[in-house]
């Protein structure tokens, strides 16, 4: 009876947290990841797999072995590029869900350039032009939704999402139709790019280091741009308060276009890397990009929309992609398992964000 009375007097409520130490933030983040791993372990149990063994396989497959590390870095390259660009768009609350198609258009533009113009060029001229073409392709595809939004008020979420389907079908059309390679024995690929334009890789790996350097540089540059430049300042004002931006005379049209040139262009660069660094030709959209345009969305959010932090979160998600591949082979789990991991991790991270911003207050009511 006494106990029950005490229990009844207990009350709790959530309050907004105003102070936040670094130690606290890190410990919340770590707790979230541990919870996520436990949940993933539960998924393994339900599939009848020893969770400790499975997690060990994931770790060995991603960061715990030389091969895994090399593969993780390879897959981190497009994530760095795309997520870095998405940070800029999302800071302005421009919800670009179309990085996947911007990547594909980058791949299309650079493939066209490689097959038609690039043959006679030396690498020192051809490779930079190849990247430029990819950037252009992604940027052009990216400014379509920007124009639609600012001029006609069409939601960028819908337009960027729909453009993904258009771009994917367009690529499929090209590879089974007009661009189908003469040397490919009827397979739905384009011909390979000329040797001079194929990106060098680090020996014994698939790491096309030029794109890797480009990705890291881009994230650093975008960080400086966001927090130290006039453009970045205007992006943040637009994102935080469109009314204040209007009051301050910030040009929405110009800024939105520039945001999408950067965000789409960065995804286009990733497309160049995938074509010229990994596949050497244009193939099915699902092969050119393993959903990088979507994984990069989570990557950017995990990096708190800070391009420098996306270098860490990009590597983390690349590891999950590679580790997922590893257990597909070693444990014969379905490919969709990786998507479950991504989902669970994103979920716990979103929840942890709430804990970062609020505190639970418990107290006994006086009678």
């Amino acid at each position, binding site marked *: 009876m006494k106990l029950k009375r005490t229990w009844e007097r207990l009350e709790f409520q959530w309050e907004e947290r105003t*102070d936040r130490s670094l130690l606290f933030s890190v410990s919340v983040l770590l707790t979230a990841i541990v919870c996520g791993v436990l949940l993933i372990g539960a998924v393994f149990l339900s599939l009848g797999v020893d969770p400790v063994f499975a997690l060990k396989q994931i770790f060995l497959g991603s960061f715990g072995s030389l091969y895994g590390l090399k593969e993780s870095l390879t897959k981190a390259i497009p994530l760095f590029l795309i997520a870095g660009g998405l940070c800029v768009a999302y800071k302005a609350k421009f919800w670009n869900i179309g990085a996947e198609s911007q990547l594909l258009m980058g791949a299309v533009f650079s493939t066209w350039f490689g097959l038609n113009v690039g043959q006679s060029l030396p690498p020192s001229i051809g490779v930079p032009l190849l990247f430029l073409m990819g950037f252009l392709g992604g940027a052009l595809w990216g400014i379509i939704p920007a124009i639609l939004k600012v001029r006609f008020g069409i939601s960028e979420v819908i337009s960027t999402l729909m453009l993904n389907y258009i771009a994917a079908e367009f690529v499929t059309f090209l590879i089974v139709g007009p661009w189908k390679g003469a040397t490919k024995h009827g397979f739905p690929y384009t011909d390979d790019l000329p040797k001079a334009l194929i990106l060098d890789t680090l020996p014994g790996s698939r790491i096309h280091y030029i794109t890797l350097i480009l990705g890291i540089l881009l994230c650093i540059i975008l960080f400086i741009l966001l927090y130290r430049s006039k453009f970045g300042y205007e992006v943040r004002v637009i994102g935080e308060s469109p009314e204040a931006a209007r009051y301050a*005379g910030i040009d929405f049209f110009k800024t939105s276009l520039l945001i999408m040139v950067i965000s789409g262009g960065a995804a286009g660069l990733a497309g160049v890397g995938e074509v010229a660094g990994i596949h050497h030709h244009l193939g099915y959209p699902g092969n050119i990009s393993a959903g990088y345009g979507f994984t990069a969305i989570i990557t950017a959010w995990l990096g708190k929309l800070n391009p420098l932090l996306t270098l860490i979160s990009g590597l983390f998600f690349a590891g999950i992609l590679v580790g997922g591949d590893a257990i597909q082979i070693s444990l014969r789990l379905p490919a969709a398992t990786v998507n479950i991991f991504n989902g669970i991790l994103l979920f716990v991270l979103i929840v942890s964000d709430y804990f970062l911003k609020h505190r639970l207050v418990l107290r006994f009511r006086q009678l």
Partner: protein
Amino acid sequence: MEMRNISKSFDGFPANKNINLNIQAGEILGLLGENGAGKTTLMKILYGLYRPDSGKIFVNGNEVVFRSPRDAIRMGIGMVHQHFMLVQNHTVLENIILGDEEAPFFFPHRAAEKKLLKFQKMYGLRVPLRSKVWQLSAGEQQRVEIVKALLQGAGLLILDEPTSVLTPQESTELFSILRKMANEGHGIIIISHKLEEILDICHRVVVLRKGEVVGSAEAKKVTKRDLARMMVGRDVVFSVDWKPAPKGEVVLEVEGLTVRSDRGTVAVRDVNFSIHRNEILGIAGVAGNGQRELVEAITGIRKAESGQVRILGKDITNQSARVIHAEGIAHVPEERIRFGTVPNLLIYENAVLKRHHFAPFSDVVFLNYDEIKENAESIVRNFSISSPSIHVPMKQLSGGNIQKLIVGREVSAGPVLLVASHPTYGLDVGATEYIRKQLVKRRDEGEAVLLVSEDLEEILELSDRIAVMFEGKIVGILDRQDANIEEIGLMMAGVAL
């Protein structure tokens, strides 16, 4: 209703300390205090938005615990917030239904409409039911809030700064409604900075300072000056030092200006006026008579349909806000938190808004953070803004300090014309006094000032000339010495003189 020993602190900073407050049925209680004195916190506790750290609340003699505003509403407590809590994209009727627990699930519109008509007849509170909230003026929105609370069966109504958006006539009307409600046994708490109206309508006044009750009195037995002293803790100068000044050259000329509102209707109709150096032109009028659109057209936020705006003889009609700012028009906007600042950016980032693309604050690409921070420090110092540092987000400042920062930022750009919209709306006595002095100082130093306000006392006190707007037209421009409050009140209601 009674509150006993209420205490509440945020991050160890006490906002309310052992406050006792009671109100009888049929009583109108005034709650006075500067910004940050703890009035709003106390009322939020009473309305169930915050839980007190200690202390109890009694309604009709029974102890109650409010876990949310819903609990408070069930106990008959209604609140009209200073910043309206309405869904902008919904119609008035939909907003009212939203708060009505008794509304039937299907076709709630009809049931609510019937009930509303009753209130409209009883109290004369008319609201355009079918309009969307964003189309309404602040005054109309407030009426919607009051009707909403009444519909929820509020026996105790809390009004936060209720008259700041009304004409004198409308305020009188509101007061007669409130008196009627009190006579019928409603309890009413009014939070206000306007001493006169508190004395006018309230039976009893409670003054808060720094989270504590510093005084309580029968309204009949105290003077304005007593209350002000209690609030601020020192004597307050009530009128600013205003000396006649000779007019200078013409700064702003507005000719045949016509502007459309968001609704697409003509909001400003063929308006003509000019402002000189060393002159304050006050624009009086009830909210929603075109003042907002006029100001937005002059400052480049809204496109004019026809007509011309000239600054020092140069045509700036329909230029962008950026160009117009560069031509020397500074703007202290209405709705200072939404338009004037970016709450999540830091103070120094806010202090450079609009000027961030000029030297010395930036070069072609990069911002110069040393200059920006120095600029912020000097604004904070020169305009006596109280803030922990310039490295905290803007949203941590109080209303008065936010406004001081905006005024400081706009003034330090060295404008030739300062456009100030409702510059002291919702500010406490201390901050109001400060902002008004600043406006007069700008005028004395040779700037032209366009002052838009619904506070007639303010307009009369500060302006050299007073223009009255009604339904988008300027019904008349009076010289300071010819103006009196009754006459202007009539013009605001559309009576041409």
